[in-house]
């Protein structure tokens, strides 16, 4: 069992991890930057050790400093939270060398899921479907690839990024011309004419599966839908994914478990899929080898404390949960309350909360580090807290969300709560008719 746990993170996740650790009788040490020495997490932790100055490059992102602080504190385990070094192979290795239990998967799992290309390769090896496509060095090869993927398809520069050289092709008659264009643009922009031919999913949903593994066994805790995103940042997350046929849901969950078993995965992880909103065909994208921001929606419907499971597995225990024990109930929605002025292009709005009135009551959970007088420092991300609602069904969850948002009050900084009220009232959202284009089409006048 873990005796003393260092939390190498900050904000709401540090607060939330400390809470569970304390409940389990584990002594907690917050590894904080100078800017977080007076944070709510520092208030709650049994001990604090300073990792470094405020900028994260010199504190939360510095492996040597995090390890030094952990050793200094006498902790026998380290929880990396999410973001920062949570999926860093170097930190996992350094922990192993120092005899500190890393609350996360093995370094080989971290490496296998380290980047999207590698993840795709491993996913294929594990037998998961991936978005059909592949590289083409010349026109002939590009034509052959197009035959395999079908239409509509996307041509993108292999060396590219940021949408440069991307072409959408809707049918075969457009293909030749678009290949020429894409290759010419790829050559001009990146000095490399190779293109990637990929099936284009017109209406896609981002659906992910929570998994837990102990290195031998693996189970899933159902799906989450995180299609509502802005610039690839998730805004709203739900569990389970709504309007998904049972056979497809079962198949996606099974694919996630297959991958976890293939990796001999240890701890909590999330397998992400792109799901065609029309056909429900699904494609593996990547795996997040850590706890995620949106984990509370899964906790709400399953009753499982995922941080507790992470700590048990990190201490060397076998999974005590079996698949049969996971009985999801009802529907949960999480909204991220960020300290941002969403009406002004989401400009960051760090500052001190003169007062923070969070909703309370049946079916409501708040994960936050911002209480009365709490500070959102300008150095880190803008997450002020998460509001999680749970109902017997999706309609009840939305009702609770609407009511909860109406009592929320944060003074001293802007927040995205008003945007969430608009989303909660949107007819498409209420109908569950949501894909990754939702936010772009949102009329938030």
């Amino acid at each position: 069992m873990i005796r003393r746990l260092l939390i190498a993170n900050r904000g709401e996740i540090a607060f939330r991890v400390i809470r569970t650790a304390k409940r389990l009788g584990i002594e907690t040490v917050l590894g904080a930057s100078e800017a977080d020495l007076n944070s709510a997490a520092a208030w709650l932790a049994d001990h604090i050790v300073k990792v470094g100055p405020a900028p994260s490059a010199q504190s939360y992102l510095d492996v040597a400093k995090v390890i030094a602080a952990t050793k200094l504190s006498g902790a026998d385990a380290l929880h990396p939270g999410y973001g920062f070094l949570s999926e860093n192979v170097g930190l996992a290795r350094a922990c192993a060398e120092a005899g500190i239990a890393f609350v996360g998967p093995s370094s080989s799992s971290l490496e296998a899921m380290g980047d999207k290309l590698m993840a795709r390769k491993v996913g294929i090896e594990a037998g998961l479907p991936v978005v059909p496509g592949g590289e083409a060095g010349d026109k002939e090869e590009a034509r052959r690839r197009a035959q395999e993927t079908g239409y509509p398809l996307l041509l993108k520069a292999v060396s590219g990024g940021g949408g440069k050289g991307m072409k959408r092709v809707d049918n075969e008659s457009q293909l030749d011309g678009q290949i020429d264009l894409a290759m010419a643009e790829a050559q001009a922009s990146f000095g490399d004419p190779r293109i990637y031919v990929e099936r284009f999913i017109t209406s896609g949903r981002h659906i992910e599966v929570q998994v837990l593994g102990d290195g031998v066994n693996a189970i899933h805790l159902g799906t989450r839908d995180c299609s509502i995103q802005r610039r690839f940042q998730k805004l709203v997350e739900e569990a389970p994914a709504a309007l998904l046929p049972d056979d497809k849901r079962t198949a996606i969950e099974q694919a996630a478990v297959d991958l976890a078993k293939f990796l001999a995965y240890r701890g909590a992880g999330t397998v992400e899929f792109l799901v065609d909103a029309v056909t429900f065909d699904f494609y593996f994208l990547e795996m997040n080898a850590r706890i995620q921001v949106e984990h509370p929606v899964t906790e709400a419907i399953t009753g499982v404390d995922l941080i507790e499971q992470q700590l048990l597995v990190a201490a060397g225990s076998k999974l005590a949960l079996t698949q049969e024990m996971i009985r999801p109930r009802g529907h949960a929605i999480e909204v991220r309350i960020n300290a941002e002025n969403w009406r002004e292009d989401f400009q960051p709005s760090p500052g001190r909360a003169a007062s923070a009135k969070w909703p309370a009551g049946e079916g409501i959970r708040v994960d936050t580090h911002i209480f009365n007088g709490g500070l959102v420092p300008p150095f880190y991300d803008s997450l002020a807290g998460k509001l999680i609602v749970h109902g017997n069904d999706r309609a009840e969850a939305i009702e609770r969300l609407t009511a909860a948002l109406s009592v929320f009050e944060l003074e001293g900084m802007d927040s995205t709560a008003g945007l969430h009220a608009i989303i909660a009232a949107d007819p498409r959202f209420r109908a569950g008719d949501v894909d990754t284009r939702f936010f772009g089409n949102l009329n938030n006048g």
Partner: protein
Amino acid sequence: MKGDLPLSPEDVNEIVTILKGSQYDRLDIRTDRYRLRVSRADAGEGQGEGWSQAWSLEDEASPAGATAQSGQEEIPVPEGMHAIRAPLPGVFYRSPAPGTAYFVEVGSSVEAESNVGIIETMKLFNPVPAACAGEIAEILVENGAMVDAGAILMLVK
């Protein structure tokens, strides 16, 4: 560091359930560790009832007790001068990248849309426009310093 939260989120929701069935619409709990106020929100027409929780972590290490670190003193803006203020809090940089020339020096002339610096907030770089035309008379904040929103960065005459 000395904080303790004996009330779980479930406990708070339980308190709300108890209050709902009572004649009371608020509960104020104060210990030497924290203060929790649970109250019924002003019910809008037909909105049903909402409840809120407000926590203060009362302790010497509490965030509420901590003072702002920057504490820059506001200087009076001299007659006939314009102040260029920080549009938002963050780290102020005088050049576009480390080791490159500063945007402006004392004596530089600026237009309203001239960029005089950058403020880094939450990993985003925000330009600081002069917002007035004239000549930079004084630069009050060092390169790399933390500034509050509205802090005076430079004076223009």
